């Protein structure tokens, strides 16, 4: 009985310290020093409205924008696929020998070549035809971005070299020189495109 009383007191104490006090303390200090990140790294448009977060992919479809990787995110109740839904992150969870997966990748590669006016034999970067782990991957590979550049230059009637220069400016190098990969943040690049005269 004594043990039960001690355990009960410990439970109440620990719920308060670990479940309430600790996250509240982290929030207070975190917001004080890193308020932008603590709120979700949000980006605001010229009118002050939130246009998204640089950490979360948007489902760009318009040919004048760079497109993100395929997404396997789901509807908010998790019942069906809804690509790029930031309220239910998900991967495809398809195995490498699943014929549905092989077909999906083959079809995606064909669609990618058509959209970007590439030859049928042109190799498509693998990140452009595979769904990311979260369904919300904000980045694409450099190869993927450079292959989309001519299409964007054509639709926007700007010099392809200008688009390539923008890609170069918006390339994120590996962190600290060696952690992770070189990559392009799609939202940041598209925002930079929209700023072009």
């Amino acid at each position, binding site marked *: 009985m004594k043990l039960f009383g001690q355990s009960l007191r410990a439970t109440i104490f620990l719920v308060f310290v670990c479940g309430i006090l600790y996250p509240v303390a982290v929030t207070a200090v975190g917001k004080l020093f890193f308020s932008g990140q603590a709120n979700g790294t949000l980006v605001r448009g010229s009118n002050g409205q*939130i246009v998204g977060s640089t950490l979360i992919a948007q*489902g760009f479809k318009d040919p004048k924008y760079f497109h993100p990787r395929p997404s396997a995110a789901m509807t*908010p109740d998790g019942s069906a696929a809804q690509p790029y839904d*930031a309220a239910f992150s998900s991967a495809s969870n398809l195995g490498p020998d699943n014929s549905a997966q092989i077909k999906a990748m083959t079809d995606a590669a064909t669609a990618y070549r058509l959209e970007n006016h590439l030859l049928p034999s042109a190799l498509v970067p693998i990140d452009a035809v595979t769904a990311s782990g979260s369904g919300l991957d904000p980045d694409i590979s450099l190869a993927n971005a450079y292959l989309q550049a001519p299409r964007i230059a054509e639709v926007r009637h700007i010099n392809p070299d200008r688009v390539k220069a923008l890609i170069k400016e918006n390339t994120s190098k590996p962190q600290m020189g060696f952690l992770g990969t070189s990559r392009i943040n799609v939202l940041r690049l598209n925002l930079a495109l929209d700023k072009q005269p």
Partner: protein
Amino acid sequence: MIANDWIQIFFSLTMVVLISPLVGRYLAWIYQSHHLSLERTVYRLLNVDPEKEMTWKEYGGAIVVSNGLFFVAGFLVLWAQAILPLNPRHLSPLTAEVAFNTAASFVTNTNWQAYAGEAQLSNFSQMVAITFLMFVGANTGIAALVAIFRGFTRSGSATLGNYWSDFFRFLIRAFLPACFLMALVHVWQGSPQTFQTAVSSKTLEGASQTLIVGPVASLESVKNLGTNGGGFYNANGAHPYENPTPLTNTLEFLEMGVFTFSLPFFFGRMIGRPRQGQVLFIVIFSLYLAGLGVIEYSEKMPNPLLAHAAIEQQATPFQDGGNTEGKEVRLGITQTSLFSNTTIAATTGAVDGAMDSMNPLSVLVYLVHMFLNEEPGGKGVGFAGLLKEAILAVFLAGLMVGRTPEFLGKKIESREIKLSALSLLVTPLLVLGLTALSVVIPAGKSSMDNPGPHGFMEVLYAFASGNANNGSAMAGLNVSTPYYAILIGVEMILSRFLPLLPLLAMAGALAKKKTLPETSGTFKTDTSLFVVLLLGFMILFAALTFLPPLILGPLLEHLSILHGVSF
């Protein structure tokens, strides 16, 4: 492999090797020094006497009763979520079976997720149920481990220490401060930390988007430091809010790796034989290295089934390449391999990429890590499992030369062997038994997401993960059905406490024995010979028990992919 891959691997492994011994030394100090005044205040508040020594039965009783109440508290919060505060999205409560599964999962340090965090849990549940259970689950594991250590450090003693003192020392001097500090680093790098929940935005193309934020960073650091693994979001560490940069990815697997690889050093210091700790570290680190090599190779391998699709799978200066399905571009293959190998070996179960889309040889490594579950094992009973294997290895060596085996000055007799064997049998019994059942009955088969050997692997992986108190999943398997939610929930509780109680009993028996002085006839357990013996025993045991399902799953899938067969 390109130069950058080698640099990342070298850097990460060096950090593990350099920091782990220091953390081990710090942990030993925690348990070999006097109470702090803050701790005394807590003991007064809880009405416990930290000096009261407990027998193994009292210690085990305290673990069971306190964890029972932790479990009830967590269950009630999840189940009553709808009427609790901080729920502006009016999320409905979890079903009773999923709430049961989740509370069982987090109190046992498994952190298996039969729910989707951002879609189903309010910020209140994420804090008061999930974050709370992550702290207490991991803390219980450490306390139990320290009690088991005392079986070796004490001579002629009937007791194993005081549970409450073991519990709160670690929480106050290591766990809470480390989590607080790392949480701030995660916020700095981009993890949200707020009590808001949904942010509406209008995308550049004019579509509306709902971003889910919350107290993510504070959950993230305890998730990794406690080798817990349950994420704020459904995609876990693959989600850019949980793991925004390659640096957070590296910190996350170091958080789990360093804390667990420090345990052998901690043990060596506690028993006053640092060399023994180093030897045990070498054993688990070599298994860890071997796993990493296979995963990196396997994930970089081009998929022959895509040969006709004109897809560039190789690494080039403009892309990282490899098996990118279910992986994030910012992390690439190497960061994902480092993370996944560590998360499984340390029984965390957090993932930064989809395990279900990994190549079969990688899954083979994950399964073997989980079957062994002793290398290094997390703040579950992982490291205690390694000691159990060491005792059995010494016993076998004793049989070969025909003399009474000794381990660390303690005679190993029939009671210790019986209890070790009992604890050892739990894994094959649960994993193989439940997998066999689930692949023949409709309730088990209907949840599979992938056809062929991959579907079989999903089921095997689920039970191996529940048993190893790991918590990662090949997530295509639908585990929120009542069948899987209840079965895996029960399995997690059995797998945590069935091996733990015999080990405590064994520690109780060992503490009673006199520590024998070392003689010229003593079999030394801090030598390279012992490394080979222990590794051999572990691999032999795992191979004899688990080779058939490994052949039916990952090996079959690997060979069929090489032969161009898809399912």
